[in-house]
């Protein structure tokens, strides 16, 4: 019997497998359970995709955006605000998966891992619901929504001193109290359930020149003394990069302000893909930037593997570059804040029975060196003073860059406008994109002007 009693290692192996699986699962359970319960298919908390019996969602000033009740609750009284904040709050069917009612679902329903979704009295939330205070401002949202009008697009505004996301508007939108019939293939409603500000990705076009400029300032020591010549077209092998007209002789600052493609193509080629990639990745490209429980859609740059004309295209924001609007606002905020961006966040605080808990996220993202940030500020201000005009920004000092991104086919270009306000009482950075809107500075710049004016009023 001794012979056989020694042969039990297979049992130990099965036992080890069991213990390993159990430990793995319990760790996952402890860390992720509150994300799992927030899944909109969870019948304990949601009815038809909407939280039952949840707390209310307020904006930063305490305006109610949505209130809860057993049948799903209702929204703000103003139709404009309902439309403007639809994507940030969420709709009645739960189709907008990134709405605050979904991503903070476990908080709204007062979930804890000990008693699960029901308290010891067997009800969700008991008598006291948890309310959410978001960082967005309903008035800035309304202004952004009105400025976008019937066009598709997004506006993201970010307080670069605190990290608050003040505005995340996405169009097309609808009134959640009176949802329209939306058929899947209707181009009018294309991507209606997507929050373009946090989850959209667009070709960046010329606003990407901010990143190429940062790389040039970092790696080409005499860049500011250089002179460039633009003949309207720059040939790279069989391919060529063109400008709308001959820019002639120009320096670095001027090249940015007139957005000269020929100059930036040369700079990109001189830098090489590795350095451009390195600077872009430090600024948050190809990595997830979180704003609480979720992250912005990841902006993409693929310059490392590019060379020749592809590298030149990457340097002027075409090639395979993809840009998320909220991320762009954070980049501009980092520039305004000396190169370091406060972590963006959407949840200001939760309140339950008079007890409030902060949802702020501390920490910073190191995106640019302070020297580079300072030079970029100067160039961006120069753009506004000499090109876009400061008149539309309510008398505030603004630095900005426009972009007109080619989208291919016979479609109109995407219009971009991204910038920041240099003002102690109104420290905001913003990014605007208008899909197929045409020229960046006029179309998107106009929207940006209205949003900045609203910010000034709201933060005063």
């Amino acid at each position: 019997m001794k012979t056989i009693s020694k042969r039990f290692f297979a049992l130990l192996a099965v036992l080890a497998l069991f213990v390993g699986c159990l430990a793995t699962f319990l760790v996952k359970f402890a860390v992720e359970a509150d994300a799992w319960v927030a899944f909109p298919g969870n019948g304990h908390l949601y009815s038809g995709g909407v939280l039952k019996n949840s707390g209310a969602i307020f904006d930063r000033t305490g305006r109610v955006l949505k209130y809860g009740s057993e049948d799903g609750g209702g929204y703000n009284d103003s139709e404009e605000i309902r439309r403007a904040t639809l994507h940030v709050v969420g709709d009645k069917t739960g189709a907008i998966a990134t709405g605050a009612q979904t991503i903070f679902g476990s908080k709204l329903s007062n979930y804890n891992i000990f008693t699960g979704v029901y308290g010891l009295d067997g009800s969700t939330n008991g008598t006291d619901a948890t309310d959410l205070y978001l960082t967005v401002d309903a008035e800035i949202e309304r202004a952004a929504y009105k400025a976008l009008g019937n066009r598709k697009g997004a506006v993201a505004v970010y307080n670069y001193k605190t990290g608050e996301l003040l505005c995340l508007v996405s169009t097309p939108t609808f009134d959640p109290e009176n949802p329209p019939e939306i058929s899947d293939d209707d181009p009018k409603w294309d991507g209606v359930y997507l929050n373009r500000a946090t989850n959209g990705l667009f070709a960046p076009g010329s606003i990407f020149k901010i990143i190429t400029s940062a790389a040039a300032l970092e790696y080409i020591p005499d860049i500011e003394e250089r002179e460039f010549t633009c003949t309207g077209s720059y040939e790279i092998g069989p391919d060529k990069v063109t400008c709308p007209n001959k820019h002639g002789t120009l320096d670095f600052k001027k090249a940015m302000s007139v957005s000269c493609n020929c100059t930036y193509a040369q700079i990109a080629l001189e830098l090489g893909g590795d350095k451009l990639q390195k600077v872009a990745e430090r600024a948050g490209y190809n990595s997830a930037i979180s704003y609480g429980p979720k992250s912005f859609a990841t902006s993409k740059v693929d310059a490392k593997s590019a060379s020749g004309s592809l590298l030149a295209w990457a340097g002027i924001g075409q090639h395979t570059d993809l840009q998320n609007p909220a991320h762009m606002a954070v980049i501009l905020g980092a520039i305004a804040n000396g190169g370091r961006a406060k972590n963006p966040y959407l949840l200001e605080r939760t309140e339950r029975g008079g007890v409030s808990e902060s949802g702020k996220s501390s920490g910073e993202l190191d995106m640019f060196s302070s020297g580079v940030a300072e030079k970029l500020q100067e160039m961006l201000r120069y753009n506004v003073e000499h090109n876009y005009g400061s008149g539309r920004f309510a008398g505030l000092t603004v630095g900005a860059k426009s972009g007109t991104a080619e989208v291919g086919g016979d479609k109109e270009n995407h219009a971009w406008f991204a910038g920041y306000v240099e003002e102690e009482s109104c420290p905001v950075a913003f990014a605007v994109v208008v899909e197929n809107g045409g020229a960046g500075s006029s179309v998107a710049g106009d929207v940006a002007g209205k949003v900045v004016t609203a910010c000034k009023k709201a933060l005063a």
Partner: protein
Amino acid sequence: MTDMILILTQVLRVLSPVFIGAVVIWCAVSLLREKKLDYIYATLVDEGSGICFPVRYLECSLGRSASCDILLELPTVSRVEAVLRHTKEGFRVFRLGKGEIAIGGKPVRASGLLKDGDTLTVGGLSFSFSINDRVETGVVAKRRGSFLMLLLLSVYELLTGYVAIAGVKEELVPSCAMAVLLLVLSQWGYFLYAKLKMHQIGLEFEIGAFTLCGIGICNLITAGGSGVITQMVAYLIGLVGYCVVLWFCGDTDRTTKYRYLASAAALVLFALNLALGSVRGGSKNWIVIGSFQFQPSELVKMLFIFAGAATLERLLSNRNLLLFLVFSTACIGSLFLMGDFGTAVIFFVTFMVIAYMRSGDIRAIALILAVAVLGALLIINFKPYIVNRFETWGHAFDFADDRGYQQSRTLVAVASGGLIGTGIGVGRLRYVVASTTDLVFGMVAEQWGMIVGVLILSFFAVLCCYAIKMRKGAKSAFYAITACASAALLLFQATLNTFGALDVLPFTGVTLPFISRGGSSMISSFALLAFIKTLSPSLYSKRRRVAHENDL
């Protein structure tokens, strides 16, 4: 729902972890404190030198190899010369080596009966054999609590049943109520049978299994209440089967005789399955005859282990695994043909446990493992669609609305339950396909809470630890193998079921023993539990003691 039910539901949320915890801890402590029998059954005294060799096992090997139980370090003795095994008639000597063996001067060819006072000649030495006829002592350890535990369990089952039945449709209330009453009565029936008729001492295995079955039945009621009677009938058959298996294994000569019949039955069942089987949930592993339906692969599990085990003299005389290998390949191959990959993996693990215990040949095992991995790779190469089944593994929420549907809903359910559960009858996983079978852990953890979920799994781990601990004191190599293989099978199957549904392992769709809905699974689980119980030192000795006393 009345206030009464509402309050009871909340009370049970807190009470369940406490009660189930008490049961599982009681089982664990009681079982793992059990000591292997330290008893000398007989002695062999060297007539020349007077050295005494104690016979400490009912199956002993004699030889000069260090692994022999009775070590005869003589050049005239083979590595393993003989096996001394206790049979119904008494001790019997089986000749395995080439040397001469004689009893009372008469040479032994294959085997011979050794009686008290006989002289055994091995390798030129003579031993006088004497049987120790003192009653086995040390067996009756202090093991209390069975009665109290069963009493508490009955109360718990009635309370949970009452709460669960409040949620079912009116026309199903009588059948569900009957099932709960039958459950409690059958448990007391078994208790009386085991205590009064069989004089059993500890009932930890049974009470542990009853607790799991109770949760399973109650869970099935919360899923709507259909199929509860069928499940109850299977449970009763399983319980009777448990007693039959315990009785049947009491005589290892009998088990030896029926091994080949068991293998043949296993193969016939699989052949029938392949010929007549119907497809359910992607696998062709059901046989349906009129309104009667069963899963042959479940019944083959016990036949497989039974056929794979053997008494010591057979293990030592026939180290060749070939026949068992062919048999196992046929079984596992059939399961592949049926498309039941989960069960195929369970059989493979069981096969490895048995093969290693039988041969002790680590190289052969490594070789078999390598061949199996190679075979799996080849299958994947030729049938890449099999890989697609595992595509969602680890990413349930990325496929939340197609192939990750069941796993993601299970994760949502267990998270919703938290540690103490949503309350019995308040679960929502029941609306998902296979909630009472493949996803049953999710349903239980949702309603009873994660603490109870982990406790249930711990019971299977306790069985495995018990097999590891008690294998040394096994009365027969046959028991050691069946018990270890069964314990490994139950724990592995529970692991595969639970963690497959929870997206830690690939989702294969096997049942959770004792808890999942399914008659065949219930019956085979009870049979496997009986195999583990054969290790219990008190099981067959008490009866032998009674028989001994009757002889006097």
